[in-house]
């Protein structure tokens, strides 16, 4: 069942490219169906894990024996990521059906989208470190082409910047794969983790690998000293792609891989580097976002800031910190998806991204305005919404770990976040409607529908903290990370 997560998107990409001439709407339907199927499959995977008490499923690709061939692993952490990725992808696909009409080649867009989705699903389920590198590159290349999809000046420039930085990152990752292979003579993550935990690995090698991984995946996930590509790439891409990049791509390509390799393979338990980098991203992203005039650029800087929160929480390494990090990851994915779709709706109706020229859109686009308000409030941590609970947990985790000044910084930055989101609301949706937009209309039905679903989720995501729900979604994932290098022996027990 695990290979289906890669087969379905790749097969649908193939089918779209072959059958696109049969009917005009066929690519839309195929892409939506594939995403829906993937979402259902990820819930089925969660159910199957639940009834077997969260013992990981291991699939041997091609039937090769354990340390030799490529294995695919489905455990608590990967199933949580799969649900988030495929949910976001489904909503983004529904949004793009109407939104992508203004671009010339919608079929190519769907094909690339599906390949990007396949790379993310593959990255999440793979248990092989070189395979992970291959999926990283597939995701990077397809997302780079999607960023340059408009082929205008700024899109090409952003895409070039992104691809150069990303390839440098991948080169670092390939170098670390080579070092791991020469040190442990294995490419299987479970096997490497067993070898490293049995022997006493030299701290120089582990330190060097940690630095290489943090540099490589830090560029992919845009943590602050490596963030230069993100504020260009996210505004340049079409809105559903900005949403995909910001809410799942940098999380699965960057944060998930980093977590898996640092905690489960190298056996790092807590990392002060991650705490410091997280705080830096939080502060830099937050303060840079205040000065932005471009709507999507503001959201991009806000992403850097929120990624900082997530990295910071994981760096603490306590169970509460890991729980808070994962919970904030889920919350941020849906809130940022919603906000980028809103920005897409604004651009669709007005063709304008500069916030100084916008205003008063609330009268003409009520649904966009209402959902955008919910998204902003959730991400800046206003009580009933999901984002509040995750930020509260992150601050509690920091206090529990004895980092009082860091907790103070997190509180201040969450106030800063609220201030720039209020600025966004005031400049775009409230105030006086300029003359030239007197006769704009609300966006088409599919786009409205795809904005309402994440809005509803944003309101109710706080419920994930209820003990019964938490035991299904979050606790198994926390357990996987907390288990550290125990990952190897658990995989070994569950190979059939």
């Amino acid at each position: 069942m695990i290979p289906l997560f890669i087969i379905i998107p790749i097969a649908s990409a193939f089918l779209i490219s072959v059958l696109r001439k049969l009917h005009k709407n066929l690519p839309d339907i195929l892409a939506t169906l594939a995403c829906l199927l993937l979402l259902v499959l990820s819930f089925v995977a969660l159910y199957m894990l639940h009834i077997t008490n969260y013992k990981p499923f291991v699939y041997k690709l091609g039937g090769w024996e354990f340390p030799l061939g490529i294995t695919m692993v489905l455990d608590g952490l990967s199933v949580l990521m799969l649900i988030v990725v495929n949910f976001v992808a489904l909503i983004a696909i529904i949004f793009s059906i109407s939104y992508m009409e203004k671009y010339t080649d919608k079929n190519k867009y769907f094909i690339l989208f599906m390949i990007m989705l396949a790379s993310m699903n593959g990255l999440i389920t793979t248990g092989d470190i070189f395979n992970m590198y291959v999926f990283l590159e597939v995701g990077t290349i397809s997302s780079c082409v999607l960023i340059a999809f408009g082929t205008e000046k700024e899109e090409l420039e952003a895409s070039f910047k992104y691809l150069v930085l990303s390839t440098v990152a991948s080169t670092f990752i390939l170098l670390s794969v080579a070092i791991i292979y020469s040190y442990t003579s294995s490419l299987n993550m479970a096997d490497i983790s067993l070898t490293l935990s049995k022997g006493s690995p030299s701290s120089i090698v582990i330190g060097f690998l940690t630095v290489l991984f943090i540099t490589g995946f830090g560029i992919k996930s845009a943590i602050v000293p490596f963030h230069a590509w993100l504020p260009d790439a996210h505004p340049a891409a079409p809105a559903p792609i900005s949403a995909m990049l910001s809410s799942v791509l940098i999380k699965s390509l960057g944060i998930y891989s980093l977590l898996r390799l640092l905690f489960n393979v190298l056996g790092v338990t807590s990392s002060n580097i991650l705490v410091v980098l997280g705080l830096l991203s939080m502060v830099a992203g937050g303060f840079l976002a205040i000065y932005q005039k471009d709507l999507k650029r503001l959201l991009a800087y806000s992403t850097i800031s929120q990624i900082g929160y997530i990295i910071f929480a994981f760096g603490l390494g306590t169970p509460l910190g890991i729980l808070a990090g994962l919970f904030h990851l889920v919350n941020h994915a849906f809130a940022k998806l919603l906000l980028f779709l809103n920005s897409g709706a604004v651009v669709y109706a007005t063709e304008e991204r500069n916030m100084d020229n916008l205003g008063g859109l609330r009268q003409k686009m009520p649904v966009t305005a209402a959902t955008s308000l919910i998204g902003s409030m959730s991400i800046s941590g206003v009580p009933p919404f999901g984002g509040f609970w995750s930020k509260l947990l992150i601050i509690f985790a920091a206090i529990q770990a004895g980092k009082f000044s860091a907790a103070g910084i997190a509180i201040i930055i969450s106030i800063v976040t609220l201030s720039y989101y209020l600025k966004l609301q005031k400049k775009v949706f409230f105030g006086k409607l300029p003359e030239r937009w007197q006769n704009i209309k609300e966006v088409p039905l599919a786009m409205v529908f795809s904005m309402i679903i994440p809005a509803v989720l944003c309101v109710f995501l706080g419920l994930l903290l209820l003990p019964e729900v938490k035991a299904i979604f979050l606790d198994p994932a926390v357990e996987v990370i907390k288990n550290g290098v125990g990952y190897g022996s658990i995989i070994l027990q569950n190979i059939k």
Partner: protein
Amino acid sequence: MIDYFLCIVLFCVGLYAILIKRNLIKIIIGLTIMEYAVNLFLVLIGYKYNATFPIFSRQNVATQQPLNMVDPLPQAMVLTAIIIGLAVTVILVGIAIRLYEKYKTFDIAEIRKLKG
């Protein structure tokens, strides 16, 4: 040992080109050099002095011991890495050509619609 050292030198040459050079094409060449340095490193890991290629054949069965062969896995990895590098280079060159059409220059100091 000198091989590994030269490999690091090659890596640094590529990184230098990416960081310092202002021409798009030179940046792409730097990236390729960096990839080749890592590929060379991978091959060096699998290399063994005086060893044969890792293929069993019907002739000379007696001398074919796995211990006398080089490690085949890094070679397979290098093949994959080369293909990925090719795909990246093709896309980068494609974007560079499009950028040249828009700006009539390869100089990144003049391609500055976006600011930090």
